[in-house]
């Protein structure tokens, strides 16, 4: 039985890890994210969320990145 779930990066809980499925953002952001290591199949961990609906801190490979929730929402991930 497939228990994996598809969701968006912003719906992860701090400490949770997901596998990137699709980065559905415009080209400029896509290139930036790709260069920072956001590529399909790579694991991504949510480290923490900023207060007052602030940005998210996520970890891809050996890089910690902050991005806004609206942008994280467009990154599709799979959790097991």
């Amino acid at each position: 039985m497939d228990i994996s779930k598809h969701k968006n990066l912003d719906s992860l809980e701090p400490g949770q890890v997901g596998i990137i499925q699709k980065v559905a953002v415009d080209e400029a952001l896509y290139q930036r994210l790709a260069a920072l290591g956001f590529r399909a199949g790579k694991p991504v961990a949510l480290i923490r969320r900023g207060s007052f609906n602030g940005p998210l801190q996520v970890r891809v490979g050996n890089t910690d990145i902050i991005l806004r929730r609206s942008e994280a929402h467009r990154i599709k991930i799979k959790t097991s």
Partner: protein
Amino acid sequence: MKRIALLGMPNTGKSTFFNRVTGASARVGNWPGITVDLMRAKILLGGHIAELIDLPGIYDLHGFSDDEQVVRHFLTAAKVDLMMIVANSSQIDRQLSLALQLKSLGIPAMLLLNMSDEAKRAGIRINTKKMTEKLGVPVMQISAKYGDHCTDALKAASLLLDKASQEADPAEIQRQLEADINIEHEMEDIVQSTVEMPIQLGDALTSRIDKVLLHPWLGLPLFFAAMYGLFQFIFTLGKPLQDSIAWLLALIRTDALEPLLASTPAWVNGLLLDGIYNGLGTVAAFVPIIILFFLVMTMVEDSGYLSRAAFLVDALMAKMGLDGRGFVMVLMGFGCNVPALMGTRVMRSKNMRLLTMLVIPLSLCSARLQVFLFLTATLFTAQQAPLVLLALYLVSFATIFITATLFKGQYKNSEPFVLELPPYRFPTARQIWLRGWQEVRHFLNRASNFIVFGVILVWALTHIPFDVAPASDATLAGKIGHLFSGVFSPIGIDNQLVIALIFGFVAKEIVIGALAVIYGLQGDALMQLMAQKLDWVQGMSFMLFTLIYTPCLSTIITLKNEAKSWLFAGLSIIWSLALAWVVSFAFYQTARWLGL
């Protein structure tokens, strides 16, 4: 002369490597068609004299950001003999993409895997020999921060320059820059066969520090406490340094220059001492503050905390179209606008930088505070004065907010808000000093001429014609005041005060001195006279105008230098004058209407 371009992603220590191999010999260079400052230096490489250029950090050769366009422009327009590509060893699994893109341009290249010390600690092993074979360009590990293998890298570069006789075809470079190449597979393949990375990644110490500094409740209070501490450090230490420079300059003036020039005609004397010498003094006053500011900012930036500040305050700043790093600079502007403007260079999006530079001059700097301390003591009781000062700080924040909100559509940020949080690092003393020194030299080179010129101009306005009392109604400044009396009388500012405002263009520090000259009185006598001549509504209107209009000549010149545009500096002046007038008008007329 051979030309070597230094390329790499942001946060790879590219500039640290540049500073390591060039030392203090680097200069800011201008390139046709390029609107950002590029550092360049001549270095001796084997038998070659080569020019090393530090290009901005980029993520993708085909990217859309301002910096990515600058790099593309540079690579097509300037004949580059060698590319030194710098990458962070610990992140080579993703940074190799840029190296592969650059390699495809056909320009001779080498890859420097920097921060080898950090990678070693993290247990990352890279087979550079194999990577050299696979990639087809020399690969070596270095640590720019500690200087490990930097000389070897230069030796390898000189060998490459010996070999590189074939010229890369500009048309071919152009073609490659337009082509969207797929390098993902190639990168995967090279990384798989040459890099060993431990499964558990992330710096444990950094994670522990972040737990406190980015804590949901503690993070912001700690940020503001840190900012307050740094602010106090810069400006409490800077003040006595500025004072001693001023004391020394005054001593030279009274003991040497004045006796020496005693026999010259009054106007020559005035031009030399009140014009040129005071102009140089104005420039000198900024030197200690700029050094201290960049000592501190280099620490904040290189330690990795500045990106964390962006994380902490982004939720508050995003609505204003600014980001957290801009917010830090605005806060520092409350000490002194000039270094805060120079500090905006950490922001890589041009539009966001311009927007930040437009609001910084509205922050109530320490020079304006001096004027307000004097006037509040003159016009208000000891109980009222602190409240008036608080109100002025609130007005300052309000004007920043209004300006950012009004202009954010004009300066729309095109760059995605995606920032790396590097691990916490300790910058070396060498890095810190070098930065402070470079920034001061930059300021002196670019700003001193204009500042001296401006001081002379204001001196001329307030002293010509020479046969009338300086700063009186009969001088050019007084005539300008009369010309604009229709503009200033509705805000309760009389002709004498307009002359003081004209002096205030040079620096707010001299406004009180100017009032002393204008009224021919000093100290308590000046206070008494002003308390008689002005009621508190007029005084408040004058303070509001002083708060909002152009802070000082040095700020204008720095704005122009940083934006590389007189037009932008002009916009800042006009906007601040208009806003100052509207705010003073609204206050003065409302107060009068209420019968105050």
